[in-house]
């Protein structure tokens, strides 16, 4: 455990040692604000909730999370530090987990820094803070799933640009799977079971259902499983790539 913790601390600190952290946080806060107020019609809706704020999170994450995850393993491989890291007395799992948790904690920090919008909505009206809390949880879980995918793809290449693009595409496909447009297309010919399966794979479906304030165990399990599977894949990919 001490190995995971040491790696976690090192990684988290390294985000703040480079401009990555600050650029990410500033852009995340600016964009989430702009989307909420201009595109989401925060005031015009006349409702005291953060629906317009959370609705844009999947799309923000689509570009910002891969920017965080792309360096996770690609840089390690490029600079050769992977050889240092994986010959220290830590298991591959501890390293994968430590790195992932650090990136996740970093996004959690960015998410926490959006608190002014929560203050605003509480000042303006009387929102259901339970729903807001659930939405924050859903948002964090979704970010975790994006990160786990990015971790795996980052492990597969030493080129960060490739890691970024492939992660965006993969996450985009997983988001799209729940889009009404896509589901309608499948509904036209596919049996309902298949349509449900496709919708069931989608980030959006699960994120939206948590966002309604109903914290269904199945949605949580979906994201946790998603994270676990992609992290497992990360470890497998690193092991395979090491030999080459």
């Amino acid at each position: 455990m001490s190995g995971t913790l040491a790696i976690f601390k090192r990684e988290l600190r390294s985000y703040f040692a480079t401009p990555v952290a600050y650029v990410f946080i500033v852009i995340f806060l600016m964009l989430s604000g702009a989307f909420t107020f201009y595109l989401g019609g925060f005031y015009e809706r006349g409702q005291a909730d953060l629906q317009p704020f959370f609705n844009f999170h999947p799309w923000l994450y689509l570009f910002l999370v891969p920017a965080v995850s792309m360096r996770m393993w690609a840089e390690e491989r490029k600079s050769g530090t992977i050889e240092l890291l994986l010959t220290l007395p830590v298991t591959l799992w501890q390293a994968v987990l430590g790195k992932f948790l650090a990136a996740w904690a970093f996004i959690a920090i960015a998410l926490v820094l959006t608190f002014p919008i929560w203050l605003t909505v509480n000042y303006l009206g009387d929102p259901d803070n339970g729903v807001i809390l659930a939405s924050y949880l859903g948002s964090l879980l979704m970010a975790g799933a994006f990160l786990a995918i990015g971790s795996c793809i980052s492990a597969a290449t030493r080129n960060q640009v490739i890691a970024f693009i492939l992660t965006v595409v993969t996450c985009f496909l997983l988001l799209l799977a729940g889009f009404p447009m896509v589901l309608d297309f499948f509904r036209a010919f596919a049996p309902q079971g298949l349509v449900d399966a496709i919708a069931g794979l989608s980030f959006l479906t699960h994120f939206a259902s948590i966002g309604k304030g109903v914290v269904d165990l199945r949605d949580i399990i979906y994201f946790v499983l998603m994270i676990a599977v992609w992290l497992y894949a990360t470890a497998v990919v690193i092991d395979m790539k090491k030999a080459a």
Partner: protein
Amino acid sequence: MIETRNLTKRYGSFTAVDGISFRVEPGQVLGFLGPNGAGKSTTMKMIAGFLAPTSGSASVAGFDVESQPMEARRVLGYLPEGAPSYGEMSVREFLGFVADVRGLDGTRREQRFDDVVGRLHLERVLEQPIDTLSKGFRRRVGLAASIIHDPEVLILDEPTDGLDPNQKQEVRALINSMARDKTIVISTHLLEEVHAVCTRAIIIAAGRVLADATPGELEARSRYHQAVSLTAGNLQEAKEALARVADIASIEVDPQDNRITAFPKPGRSIFVPVNDALKAGNVDVRELALEAGRLDEVFRTITQSAVGTEART
């Protein structure tokens, strides 16, 4: 102690390391020699537990690197080729990180930290990001990280590569100072380094061990071993004098500086007879030396014949 048994690594049809077996005891400094691509780094990576062997096994201080990887890694210090480190961290943070992962704490942590910083003269750069350091300092930071837990077994992949002569000297002194109670393996392609630090040398090429001996024994394989070289005022006179020595097998003259080298017949010692003959012939000798043998020549002979057979098969 390090032991490998038939250690082999294959990539598809290419065999990078081909059944290497050796054993290194505490107190020994083993030099791993070989041309580029001979399999030195691959062998070291397998012992360090980074790469899994295709077949065969390796153990570090009695722990098998595959079945007891954590135990083996705990007693091992490993400097990967190029001494990689996290560039955005300061030297203090980086060494602190390695100490944390290795579970050092309390006074021992402080003690070890001060010890390696002192040994590698890192005091001045402790707060600097590693990215901003010179190559020599970066290598020293890597070395410091590899010995921070005072390991029993040390594997250093080209520890002096890219250092200037003074820095090389310092690193060699460091290795010598640790050699007494540790098991150390270093890889290098500098033959002078073998003399300076190694008690034993293994020459590998094309993934196979071609020689395993002390530096002295290797030199004895050289055709220069026991040869006598001299420079004389009059080349012709010197040659005539040498022609009278019965045990000389052949004589070569360096066309550049007219240095004469006389090679003895196998098993004969010619230094005294040569000296006598030169005196008797009244030759004006400017310099006379007994050769110990040339490692570079032995190295070339051994590795090139191996590459030759490889090309034929």
